[in-house]
């Protein structure tokens, strides 16, 4: 397969995904839930973009749009030089071979009646990725080893594995067809603390070993996202409010929501905690069904002025690839 080897593997431009709200017997559309409302970002080949935000901010929806599990209502997603949003149905299979997904819950995302070998090998069959039986067996064995599982466990069923091992199976399945982009949707939030580090390290090791492997890492845990990502996008109510390198995000957060989110995450060190800024936001995230006018964050913002409710602030680059959507910074 010849692919244009440009710098950016994924380029989302003004992406919009609305879900219709219907009412009455005739299920007439009465409104839209704007799950993702004009999101623009790029991911460099071989790098990791973290997507953080609270539940309902649209981060999972973006992942699903990239896979075309949802057809966006507006905007473009350029993956390897091709616009995913206008891809004809019959090309989708090929897309889903190149873009894989790792799910949050390793308990419900594996078929309980299929053994581990079958789960990992299924994508190979679907995408006709291997020719002969022995190639198939070799590839499955190779995938087991790649994620640190013993190939002799191929005949076991998901319930015989621990949570961490199950997530490894999920990762092996995602890697099966040698994808260039993996969407990791909260891949470690269901795991125990001591197991989380094993999975994070595995994901990092895989990226080092496989040339050009790119992650879109979706999570709500800011410290995990910061650890694994090169760049981080912070989302609020369907929009990106700040996007910058993970180092800059902690050292120089600019958007008031980013600052509040950072301060809400306690650091496991009482000596550091003593001196940290603590911003406690008022209220809760408004419903995306009826978002506030202007900047979606202004009703909870501690820096808001009357102007903030006028217009949606665009993301603007303030230098060094640090983009922020706020008129007060």
């Amino acid at each position, binding site marked *: 397969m010849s692919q244009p080897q440009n710098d950016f593997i994924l380029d989302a431009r003004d992406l919009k995904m609305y879900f219709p709200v219907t009412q009455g017997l005739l299920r007439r559309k009465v409104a839209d839930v704007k799950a993702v409302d004009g999101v623009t970002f790029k991911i460099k080949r071989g790098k990791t973009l973290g997507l953080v935000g*609270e*539940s309902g901010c649209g981060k999972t929806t973006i992942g699903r749009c990239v896979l075309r599990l949802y057809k966006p209502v507006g905007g473009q997603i350029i993956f390897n030089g091709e616009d995913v949003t206008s891809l004809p149905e019959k090309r989708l299979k090929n897309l889903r071979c190149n873009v894989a997904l790792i799910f949050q819950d390793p308990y419900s995302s594996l078929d309980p009646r299929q053994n581990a070998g079958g789960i990992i090998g299924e994508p190979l069959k679907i995408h006709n990725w291997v020719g002969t039986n022995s190639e198939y067996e070799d590839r499955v064995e190779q995938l087991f080893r790649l994620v640190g599982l013993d190939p002799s466990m191929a005949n076991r069923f998901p319930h015989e594995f*621990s949570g*961490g091992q199950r997530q490894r199976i999920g990762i092996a399945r995602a890697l099966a067809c040698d994808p260039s982009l993996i969407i990791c949707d909260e891949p470690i939030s269901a795991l*125990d*603390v*001591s*197991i*989380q*580090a*094993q999975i*994070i*390290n595995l994901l990092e090791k895989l990226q080092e070993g496989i040339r050009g492997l790119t992650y879109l890492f979706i999570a*709500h*845990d*800011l*410290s*995990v996202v*910061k*650890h*694994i990502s090169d760049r981080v996008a912070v989302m609020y109510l369907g929009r990106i409010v700040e996007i910058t390198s*993970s*180092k800059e995000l*902690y050292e120089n957060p600019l958007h008031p929501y980013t600052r*509040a*989110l*950072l*301060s*809400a*995450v*306690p*650091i*496991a*060190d*009482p*000596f*550091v*905690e003593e001196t940290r800024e*603590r911003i*406690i*936001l008022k209220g*809760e*995230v408004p419903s995306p069904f009826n978002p506030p006018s202007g900047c979606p964050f202004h009703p909870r913002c501690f820096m808001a002025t009357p102007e903030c409710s006028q217009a949606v602030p665009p993301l603007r680059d303030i230098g060094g690839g640090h983009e922020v959507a706020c008129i007060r910074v």
Partner: protein
Amino acid sequence: MAELLRVENLRTQFHTDSGLVKAVDGVSYHIEEQEIIGLVGESGCGKSVSQLSVMQLISAPGEIASGKVIFRGQDLLQFKANGPEMRSVRGAKIAMIFQEPMTSLNPVLTINRQLTEMLELHLGMNGMAARERAIELLDIVGIPSAQSRIGDYPHQFSGGMRQRVMIAIALSCNPDILIADEPTTALDVTTQAQLLELMKEIVERFNTSLVIVTHNLGVVARYAQRIYIMYAGRIIEEGTTKDIFGDPRHPYTIGLLKCIPRLDEEEGRKLVPIEGLPPNLINMPPTCAFLPRCSYKTERCSREPWPPLTHHYGQHYVSCFINTEGKTYEPAAK
């Protein structure tokens, strides 16, 4: 500060088809007035079961095998689980906030009913007085327009608001101790921060003590004064928060601190995972349960039974041979 609750050598077991599960295996801890303590461990380490045992909320096939729970000079385990003495303590003097605000509120009763039930049962209030107090409680926990929302059902509240209602219920009888079992795990980050601040405020304002049961080391680093680290049914290290984070001594504690990502870490820091899995609590060997995963183990560890908690200095206790032999570990990654 005076001691409020002392748990001594608590053992809670579950008789299952596959064998005896010693979920809590000789746990001792105490809490002082107005103190916030943290009980930290991974799932299945017995942290929740130990708290349910204090409240005598263990049902078959589980049983509290032995131990003492001394609260204001009385051993609560001497009381019958359903007796009047225990019922006057449970919910009134020691109240619990559970993890899942979705499932721990009754979906078919109004918030008013669930709040006034406590007030009527424990304080003998009724009618308008109970309702007034209920509104006051909702106000304290920061539910806007409490007057109009008191008649609502749980599903009409968001997750964070439901947890506030849970806190209001727990607070209704002015308890001496609040036990918060993973109080914010199911909630969003900024809501978590709001609720933890609220609980801290309550501790200061109403002179209660708070037990935070959690797997999140950050939460206890921020809020707890003292910390107990649990592993496989036992406390393996205890000390002030600064002892635990500044001078962790048990290999498990050290391992935990090395394996969590931190917001303020250097770029390129590698996490050091704890290899292996937490043990299955059925038919445990007598040796240290952390032994198979320990990177500091010595020959003595596999020869002798699990060492008891031994005094280190101040309030710092560690259950590990290497420490009693006078060696110290390399400090945890900063």
